[in-house]
């Protein structure tokens, strides 16, 4: 599951870098896309990651990394435009559509993604996932939140505490 490779390595083609996931899968990706990561940006600017070297990412597995790179590739052109002040409404709408679709995934993947985004310092991705998880919590009762977030069913003791809390903070449940 590597990122799409461009056939020609030189001759004005975009510079490529290689990232290596914790489970030793190599991803070749345009330097511009990988540079969305503040963590990687400096290494890449210093000329790292090219050729056979590759940049090891010991705390990101291949499934997560491929997802992270999918985001970076999609967002790289806009980021290169300095946050895309000249982007057309169509471009922005397309990115928004992509983002909404992108986070429509299993929760465990969301958590892996936000951790990876945090470690790699990809601000846009981190806030995209944070917003998604917040939206999953918003407007729900504690019981619903527990279910949504995959907490096990509460013990009777926990249930009693929950009820007591709901009494104490009645205004938060109106």
């Amino acid at each position, binding site marked *: 599951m590597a990122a799409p490779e461009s056939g020609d390595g030189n001759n004005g083609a975009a510079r490529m870098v290689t990232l290596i996931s914790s489970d030793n899968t190599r991803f070749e990706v345009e330097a511009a896309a990988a540079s969305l990561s503040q963590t990687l940006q400096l290494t890449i600017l210093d000329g790292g990651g090219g050729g056979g070297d590759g940049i090891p990412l010991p705390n990101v597995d291949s499934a997560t990394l491929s*997802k992270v790179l999918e985001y970076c590739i999609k967002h790289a052109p806009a980021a290169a435009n300095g946050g895309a002040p000249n982007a057309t409404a169509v471009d922005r709408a397309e990115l928004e559509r992509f983002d909404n679709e992108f986070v429509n995934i299993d929760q465990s*993947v969301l958590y892996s993604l936000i*951790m990876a985004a945090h470690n790699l310092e990809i601000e846009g991705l981190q806030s995209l996932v944070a917003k998604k998880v917040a939206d999953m919590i918003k407007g729900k009762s504690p019981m619903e939140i527990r279910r949504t*977030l995959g907490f096990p069913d509460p013990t009777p003791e926990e249930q009693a505490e*929950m009820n007591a*809390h709901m009494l104490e903070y009645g205004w938060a*449940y109106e």
Partner: protein
Amino acid sequence: MEASPTRRRPRSQSPDAEAAHGALDYLYPELLNEILSRLPLRDAVRTSALARAWRHRWESVPSLRFIWTGRADPGAISDVLRRYSCPVREFRHYYVTEASFGHSDRWLRLLALRVVQSLFLDFKRSDDDELLHTLHPSIFSCRGLTTLYLGGCYIPAPPPGFTGLPNLTELRLRKVGFTEGARVLELLIATSPLLESLRLEYLSLPLSNGVYNQWIIRAPKLQSLTIDAIFDDEWQINDLPSLEEADIDCVGYSPDRDIVKLMTELAHATKLKLSMPVKVADPCAFNYYLHTPALEVLDFELDENYSEDDEVDCDFLNALWTDDDDLFSNLIRVGVTYTTCKLSEMLFIEFLLSEARRLQELHVCLDSFCAKSNEAAATELAKYRRASPRAKVFFSRND
């Protein structure tokens, strides 16, 4: 690119531990905070019922917004503020009723402790719009404030040693009174060195011996000034070198005041809206906007009662006609509202159209008392020579 869902947890945990809590528990605290800080306050508070580990978590989530309506239980508000341990970024209460007046003193003390940045408090007034509540002086201890809106209350004297609100950039006071007089307002403005935006709407300042005391707006960084007042409570402007926009609506503005001084003080503005008894063709005021090259947008709301001296104004305008100065050079939009098509007003419009090279829009709104028909006025306007090829005239009537 398809991603297969991974079963891997962000941090390696024993399966038992995972079973005991949600996976969310294993995120770094700063990531959890980033997620929770996006929640409305009540949702954040609800998370404390999730499990024991979550009990106090919301209390240290930064950047929660405290937004309340008139129905909010005032005791609950105090309680939440007492428990919350981070600086308060934003606190808004849209309608503080009489039952909450006493509580609001406690809120302000807590908000000062929690270094509130943005504060919005609107207090209930009596049925005849009289102010009922006097704010707690803790407001003067909220030194973290960047944005402050107060409505429907009296502001007391600051405590001795008050040195100002060093970070305040935006101040809006609506239907606010000052128990100790305008000097407190003057002080509040003058000791907020970063103030960029000031809106003063329907203030109620005390009279002394039947007259208002003069008070001065001094704000070196001020960019936007809005004054809405019925009576002329003797505000003065002094040195606003950063001013970009001014919108002054003051029907009671005393005609005896020095209009040239006011205009000179407003000289830095590029957008100016005046709804006060100033005539478009007032010879003194006119001199000002003739020679304010920065001015781009000029809006007048005229006062139909102000009709004497029409001939004098016409003479003045006619004398200007031969002047070949570069006048109105940057004006883009002009509005003349409630005109009765007095000779001087029409002369002003004619003069303006013939001089303003960059003009794009002229909005003329006839007053309902205007004797001239819409057609007659429009025909007359169409005859005037236009210096700007792009100038469009928009025409309406206030009926």
